[in-house]
């Protein structure tokens, strides 16, 4: 048995890193267990001529395709899970689009009642968004009229480039909102990290650390504060004492195969929207008197358009994100559905990726027409994604697989996900709007993609893993309270994407970080009381 910790953090991704840093800097004895190892800058494929091939193999975002040594399988016929198990978690491979949730995202219970209200508001979270921006190091342009006013970004926006200007022109023609995209990427040297050099390898993470890879941005600060980070430590179960509180966790040291128990006064779960419910379910259905653990899984709705214009856009260069448009972000029931969506505008990849179909199945033909297609399309393309707020449904859930296990013999998670009819209507509407954009951009060729299989199954690239241990105001319908404290287990906190009550219309990492920072600072500021808590407060 190792020395008891004040705080045990499980998972070292975005939310675990921030939690560890805040509590470590407060002088607490913090242990963080991470099932993966370190992903060093040189491990990324950016320096290799075969980097696009590696993106299809050991750098594939889906762990089921990648079969990495630190991964666990995920059983699913619907969701293509994006997950990276290593120090820094999925920030090793995300694209760091950094918009915020909007005020109405927190009020869906009031707005339509098909999803619950959060127990907090945008205003509760806004100061933490501002501080996360400075901690993480981001770029963007203040003054977006589609969002509440907030502090400026620590570095200026990334360049608009021909892709952004071309699409901005299309949005102007349509009379729709657009704005340079906020990014978790520094456009100037910042906090010891170099400015983005436009290498365009973003789909395989960022080897430079210009994009906030948390092992290079947040973890150095946490380690400097004395946090005991233990890579290759896979947690097998959380242990409960006779008082109903957690006593700690049993983990496998994957270097030796030995099992250890780590005692702690407080446990923070930061294992992502799949890993966290998996661990709770593996721990005798812990914190689940509401039967909400694993339920309400949200990925966002996603449809896409890849388009090509006559003008050379040099779209194999620069940061992957270009613009956002929040024209359709709020509910308007005259469209035939509730909730809204956001357009993320992106570049088009290097030559290999473009030839096999970068974001849609539109690919170069084989045979005699190959080079003519390539000459016409390469460097002339871009992509627009419509990301929408999918409704939380109890039937969309993470359970434990009866068949698959990980390398340590632990049950794999099993995922069932199907969009609600409301989500399908939103996606159909968004596809029509994507076509509007392609036409307004004077595209000579475009391809729409609905991510439906030949059998009609929505097979989303599940970049976002949300809602599976959601925050709420009532213990009967949620897993954690407004401070991320489990209703059933007062010294358990859940801070990853599973805590989100609704999904919003944007990429969620910024919001996950702001929530984790808020929870960690609350815990820090009340630690003397909370470390001994025997009940979870409704306030």
């Amino acid at each position, binding site marked *: 048995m190792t020395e008891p910790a004040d705080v045990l953090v499980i998972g070292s991704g975005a939310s675990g890193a921030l939690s560890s840093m805040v509590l470590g800097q407060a002088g607490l004895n913090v242990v963080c267990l991470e099932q993966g190892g370190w992903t060093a800058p040189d491990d990324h494929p950016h320096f290799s001529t075969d980097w696009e091939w590696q993106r299809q193999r050991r750098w594939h975002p889906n762990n089921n395709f990648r079969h990495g040594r630190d991964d666990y399988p995920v059983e699913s016929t619907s969701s293509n899970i994006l997950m990276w198990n290593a120090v820094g978690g999925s920030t090793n491979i995300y694209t760091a689009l950094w918009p915020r949730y909007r005020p109405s995202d927190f009020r869906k219970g009031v707005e339509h*009642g098909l999803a619950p209200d959060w127990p907090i508001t945008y205003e509760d979270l806004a100061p933490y968004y501002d501080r996360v921006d400075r901690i993480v190091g981001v770029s963007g342009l203040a003054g977006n009229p589609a969002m*509440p006013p907030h502090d400026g970004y620590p570095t200026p926006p990334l360049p608009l480039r021909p892709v952004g200007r071309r699409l901005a022109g299309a949005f102007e023609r349509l009379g729709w909102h657009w704005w*340079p995209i906020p990014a978790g990427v520094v456009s100037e040297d910042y906090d010891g990290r170099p400015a983005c050099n436009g290498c365009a*390898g973003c789909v395989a993470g960022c080897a430079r650390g210009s994009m906030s890879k948390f092992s290079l941005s947040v973890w150095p600060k946490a380690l400097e504060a004395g946090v005991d980070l233990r890579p290759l430590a896979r947690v097998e179960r959380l242990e409960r004492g006779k008082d109903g509180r957690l006593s700690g966790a049993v983990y496998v040291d994957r270097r030796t195969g030995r099992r250890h128990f780590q005692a702690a006064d407080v446990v923070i779960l930061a294992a992502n929207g799949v890993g966290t419910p998996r661990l709770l379910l593996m721990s005798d259905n812990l914190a689940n008197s509401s039967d909400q653990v694993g339920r309400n899984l949200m990925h966002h709705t996603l449809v896409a358009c890849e388009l090509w214009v006559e003008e050379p856009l040099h779209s194999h260069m620069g940061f992957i994100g270009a613009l956002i448009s929040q024209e359709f*972000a709020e509910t308007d029931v005259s469209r035939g559905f509730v909730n809204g969506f956001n357009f993320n505008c992106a570049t088009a990849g290097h*030559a*290999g990726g473009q030839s*096999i179909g970068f974001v849609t199945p539109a690919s170069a033909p084989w045979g005699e027409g190959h080079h003519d297609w390539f000459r016409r399309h390469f460097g002339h393309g871009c992509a627009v994604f419509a990301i929408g707020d999918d409704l939380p449904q109890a039937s969309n859930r993470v359970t434990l697989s009866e068949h698959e296990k990980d390398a340590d013999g632990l049950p794999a998670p099993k995922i069932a996900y199907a969009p609600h009819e409301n989500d399908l209507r939103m996606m159909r509407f968004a596809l029509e709007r994507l076509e509007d954009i392609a036409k307004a951009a004077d595209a000579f060729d475009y391809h729409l993609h609905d991510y439906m299989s030949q059998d009609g199954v929505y097979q989303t690239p599940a970049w976002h893993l949300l809602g599976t241990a959601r925050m709420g105001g009532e213990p009967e319908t949620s897993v954690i309270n407004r401070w991320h404290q489990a209703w059933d287990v007062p010294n358990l906190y859940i801070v990853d994407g599973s805590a989100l009550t609704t999904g919003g219309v944007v990429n969620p990492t910024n919001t996950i970080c702001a929530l984790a920072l808020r929870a960690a600072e609350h815990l820090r500021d009340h630690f003397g009381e909370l470390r001994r808590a025997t009940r979870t407060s409704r306030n």
Partner: protein
Amino acid sequence: MNEAKALAAELAALVDVLVPGDGAFPSASEVGVQAKLADRLTLMRGDGAVPALIESLAAAGGPLARLEAGGRTAVLGRIERERPDDFLLIRNIVYLSYYESPAVHEAIRAMGFTYHAAPLPAGYDVGRFDPATDTPRHRRGAFVGTDEVRRVDLAKLDFLGGGHD
């Protein structure tokens, strides 16, 4: 022709049907894609993958090396129709391998693009955000504030099946 040479010839013929050369771009076999195809297919599908591919080409009307251009295209077309997943894997390996080649990068540069063999270390000079020209001048966009969120009328959303106000 011994067995190894015949295998190499068949793979070379296959990759050239998929990516033939033209005046500016080399053919796939000229830049050695057939070797990468063999390596990567074996990596993904195991030791029997390449022999299985050769057999499937023969079963579809091959071997390719004995056919004229039209016959080779017909064989690949048959496999694409009958075994689309296998065909897609082979095609993607060939495409990705092809665009790794320095000779192909040179052809892309000749199109007028700056193009590096790998993203790093060089990166690309993409300039900086120009506030004078790149800042949006429109004032479009709005949000519903926390205290302004109101119940929407769900009556028109018949797919909800009633029970919602």
